[in-house]
């Protein structure tokens, strides 16, 4: 295995063109799977020092660089407002202090672990994911991005550069998870957004092959019976389905409290 540290995005994209090349950001997902010898890249393109970080707020959107760490998200003042609180809340519940010091937003989304937390939040907040390849830039919606367990719309030599969140003034958001007692990943996680116009969205994670939005405008929880939910040895499917309802409802309640300024 080779390790290269490009100094520009273009160089990184060039490096990724090599067969079996992999981007290395915070390494908090990639190194664990490499240690288990599940993934064996020939070249690691270390993007960790590229200028892809930062929390950028403008009037109607929030742009988060792919290399923004969980720790930056959990402590960013910009994310204190109810409309974006789910982001910080979710980040602060990921892994542990050491993992949050290094793990990045882009890495988590690209890794697309079906039990990871943040995919639910980007889905519920209706984020757009900005991707760059040598051939150019494209933007895909969060819904188009997640395709299955550890599978996304990313091309082999493509990088996430930014994630863009529309700002809906006056809305409230929340993330609630029941964690697996050993791994800490989501046994069931729900991100909810409640808007002043009465609209609401809920996305679930940890339930199946990938995070997904509950398709319903009225009450998203009504869509639960049709959702594809998996069981496993630890948490049988009846329990997971029940839990999905619990976290979805709790997330909605908290999002509404935040919107109305009655919570916290």
């Amino acid at each position, binding site marked *: 295995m*080779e390790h290269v540290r490009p100094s520009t995005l273009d160089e990184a994209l060039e490096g990724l063109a090599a067969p079996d090349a992999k981007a290395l950001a915070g390494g908090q997902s990639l*190194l*664990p799977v490499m240690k*288990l010898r599940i993934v064996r890249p020939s070249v690691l393109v270390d993007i960790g020092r590229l200028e892809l970080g930062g929390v950028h707020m403008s009037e109607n959107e929030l742009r988060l660089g792919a290399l923004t760490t969980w720790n930056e998200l959990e402590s960013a003042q910009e994310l204190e407002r109810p409309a974006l609180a789910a982001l910080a809340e979710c980040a602060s519940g990921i*892994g542990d202090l*050491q993992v949050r010091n290094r793990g990045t937003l882009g890495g988590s989304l690209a890794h697309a672990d079906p039990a990871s937390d943040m995919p639910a939040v980007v889905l519920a907040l209706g984020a757009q994911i900005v991707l760059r390849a040598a051939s150019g830039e494209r933007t895909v919606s969060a819904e188009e991005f997640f395709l299955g367990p550890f599978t996304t719309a990313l091309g082999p030599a493509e990088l996430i550069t930014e994630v863009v969140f529309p700002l809906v003034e006056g809305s409230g958001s929340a993330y609630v998870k029941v964690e697996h007692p050993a791994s800490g990943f989501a046994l069931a996680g729900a991100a909810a957004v409640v808007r002043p116009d009465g609209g609401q969205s809920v996305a679930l994670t940890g339930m199946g092959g990938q995070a997904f939005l509950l398709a319903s405008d009225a009450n998203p929880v009504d869509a639960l019976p049709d959702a594809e939910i998996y069981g496993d040895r630890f948490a049988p499917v009846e329990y997971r389905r029940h839990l999905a309802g619990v976290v979805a409802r709790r997330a909605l309640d908290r999002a509404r409290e935040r919107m109305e300024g009655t919570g916290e």
Partner: protein
Amino acid sequence: MPAARQLELVINGERRSAEVEPRTLLVHALRDGLGLTGTHVGCDTSQCGACTVLLDGRAVKSCTMLAVQAEGAEVTTIEGFARNDELHPIQRAFVEHHGLQCGFCTPGMILTASDLLTRAPDPDDATIRRALRGNFCRCTGYQSIVDSVRAAATALREGEAA
């Protein structure tokens, strides 16, 4: 096998050089290459925190970082945590408040506590416990560790005030 190369690192304030392969984890470079065996290995799933070191002052799991990723950064291990031959207040608190039994988790606990206390100088117990989530201890039941961190926070605040 890809060629090993000499890697220059700043460890505990000193410039050190170690022979590493690109795949070598920082923890192995520290332990095997540099003889800094106070950094321990307790798991292979990046969970236990026994391998925690400071990278530019921030706690990281040295088993979940390549040695090459530490190039250009300042690494602090438990061996370099004491200040001028005197125990760091956090170390002293762990001794005085019985924050250890077997001691295998201790270096990682202390370094994680250091990161916490630089950001939150006056944490409550819940904050301390949350910060130590990625540091397993099987001996103490954690309470004496929480006591030690709380006492260290006080000592550090008083030290600063003085």
